[in-house]
């Protein structure tokens, strides 16, 4: 069994959802970013989405846009992020590691080369935000050849019929998310969400995780009742966006991860 399958079935056995943290890689800078990810794993994250900063992040909201801009200015590069992924893997053989990127970064690095390097360094999968079903062939063969999962996205705007086509051959997991304009913290989790996720889950051969502006244990707990995993991103990145010192920022980030991790059990 591959690492992601292992991870989800282990969570399932403990009757809880997996916790997936999105981190803008290289934010606030490369060293502190790596330290933060260590903290997140220590605080209970099962999987890390390493967000590759891009200066035209058309799928992201203000928080992650700003983090990406800062990371780039602080010297974040795709090779640097890959190297960081390698070091994390060596320290944490079981943590899921997903590269979360815009296609241009991947395209520019070289699709084949990226898959080869990331797989060699111990990555599990790639999530390309601006690669819809129709364009998937640009990346899927290289992923398959290197044993990486290509994580598909399904949005609330996706019709069920289309969602079925999207998830049909999925390995790894399916990411159910309203990315565009909604990476960002939301006050409430939409009501219809549950129903839609159940439908997608039914159609999917792989687990389905949900990211929808989750920022509290209460929200996470609600989502954990019907999803295989819960993703938090903006709320986490935002911990590092204020004027406090890094130790304070890291502490509250770890607190957030801890709070989420504690609330992922499936109610009996």
């Amino acid at each position, binding site marked *: 069994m591959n690492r992601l399958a292992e991870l989800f079935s282990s969570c399932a056995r403990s009757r809880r959802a997996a916790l997936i943290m999105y981190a803008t890689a290289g934010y606030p800078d490369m060293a502190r970013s790596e330290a933060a990810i260590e903290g997140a794993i220590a605080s209970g994250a099962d999987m890390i989405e390493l967000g590759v900063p*891009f*200066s*035209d*992040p*058309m*799928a*992201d*909201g*203000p928080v992650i*846009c*700003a983090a990406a*801009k800062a990371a*780039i200015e602080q010297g974040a*590069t*795709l090779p640097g992020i890959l190297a960081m992924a390698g070091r994390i893997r060596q320290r944490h053989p079981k943590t899921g590691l997903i590269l979360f990127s*815009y*296609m*241009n*970064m991947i*395209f*520019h*690095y070289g699709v084949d080369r990226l898959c080869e390097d990331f797989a060699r360094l111990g990555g599990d999968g790639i999530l390309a*935000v*601006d*690669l*819809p*079903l*129709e*364009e998937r062939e640009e990346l899927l063969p290289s992923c398959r050849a290197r044993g990486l999962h290509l994580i598909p*996205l*399904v*949005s*609330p*705007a*996706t*019709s069920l019929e*289309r969602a079925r086509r*999207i998830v049909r051959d999925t390995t790894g997991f399916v990411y159910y998310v*309203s*990315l*565009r*304009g909604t990476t960002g913290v939301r006050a409430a989790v939409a009501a219809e969400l549950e129903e839609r996720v159940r439908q997608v889950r039914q159609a999917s051969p792989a687990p389905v995780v949900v990211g929808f502006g989750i920022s509290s244990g209460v929200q996470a707990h609600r989502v954990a009742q019907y999803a295989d995993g819960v993703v938090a991103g903006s709320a986490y990145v935002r911990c590092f966006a204020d004027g406090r010192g890094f130790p304070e920022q890291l502490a509250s980030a770890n607190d957030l991860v801890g709070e989420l991790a504690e609330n992922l059990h499936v109610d009996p």
Partner: protein
Amino acid sequence: MSEPANYRLTPDAAGFFGVYGGVHVPECLVGPLREVADAYNRISRCADFIAELRYIRKHFQGRPTPVSYCRRLSDRLDGARIYLKREDLNHSGAHKLNHCMGEVLLAKYMGKKRVIAETGAGQHGVALATAAAYFGLECEIHMGEVDIAKQAPNVARMKLLGAKVVPVSFGLRTLKEAVDSAFTEYLKDPVSTLYCIGSVVGPHPFPLLVRDFQEVVGIEAREQFLEMTGNLPEAVTACVGGGSNAMGIFRGFINDPTALYGVEPLGKGPKTGDHAASMTYGTPGIIHGFKCYLLQDDKGEPLPVYSCASGLDYPGVGPEHCLLADQGRASYQVVNDDEAVAAFELLSRLEGIIPALESSHAVAQAMHAARRYAPEDVIIVNLSGRGDKDMDNIRQYKEGRGQ
């Protein structure tokens, strides 16, 4: 150079011009874009839509815009004669209204209540606001706060035309963030809103749709020039920002033995950040939902761009241009700020036509290219817009040079 392409068949059903274009967007945008593509395919073929668009072009926009022979300019040049396709006389002063009227008419036929777009310098915003006013649709224009401060006259114009101008206050507070902000707003209600792009860029179907609405420029120019002279021109030239005015005139001559020149802004020079010559200095990349030649750094980050003509400073370029370049059907050349400003002044003084600084790039290239042609040959320049808006730019530019 590959086999002669069948230009009728581009783009393919997935929106690809060769390997360029496509729909590189987040999943949530796929549905709305598909709806637009389907609606466009259906509606743009229906007789009522065609008749209404033709009526609007004639009675509202003042089309056909004329083709003017530049006698005094041509007499100065040692070579081809220069003609202009006069999009400066199109209502609202530039070619942009051609596709904005088409887009908003499409919105009307789709039953939308509102159109939405971002704008940088404000040209697209004004054109879209004009079209929306004509049809009585709501119009929302997202604009970075920095741009709002710089482009006060265009902001006033948009508001006068009834558009809601939404200031974008995050990030660099310029075009980039305005795109994000407009898309976000669009996605909140794609059922009653149509996103209206400003050039032959973005994900499919925009490059197709904008090109088709601009094609009238080339079709008219060809017919008018034939009527005036009995011949086809040896060359056609147009400036390229996103590439809408160039595609518009190119399509009219695409199957003719007419050379096609696209002119990119070299700004202050070939140094990174000093220009916006995507075709010339770019490499294939993906931006704003489509693949094209892109000015990007060694990490794949879009580079900062510059041109004295704010309508040309875009790091990408329409996918159809990329295909035409690869196939050798069109060739892309650069003109710098100084040359464009000189052409701006020369055309004003010799012909009484003040061109947009964008269009001045094409004029400069034509003057240069003329030397390679015989005196009986003709180059038609797409004069994409008028230059009233640039009087201040020119003054500042000259002050900057101590002139």
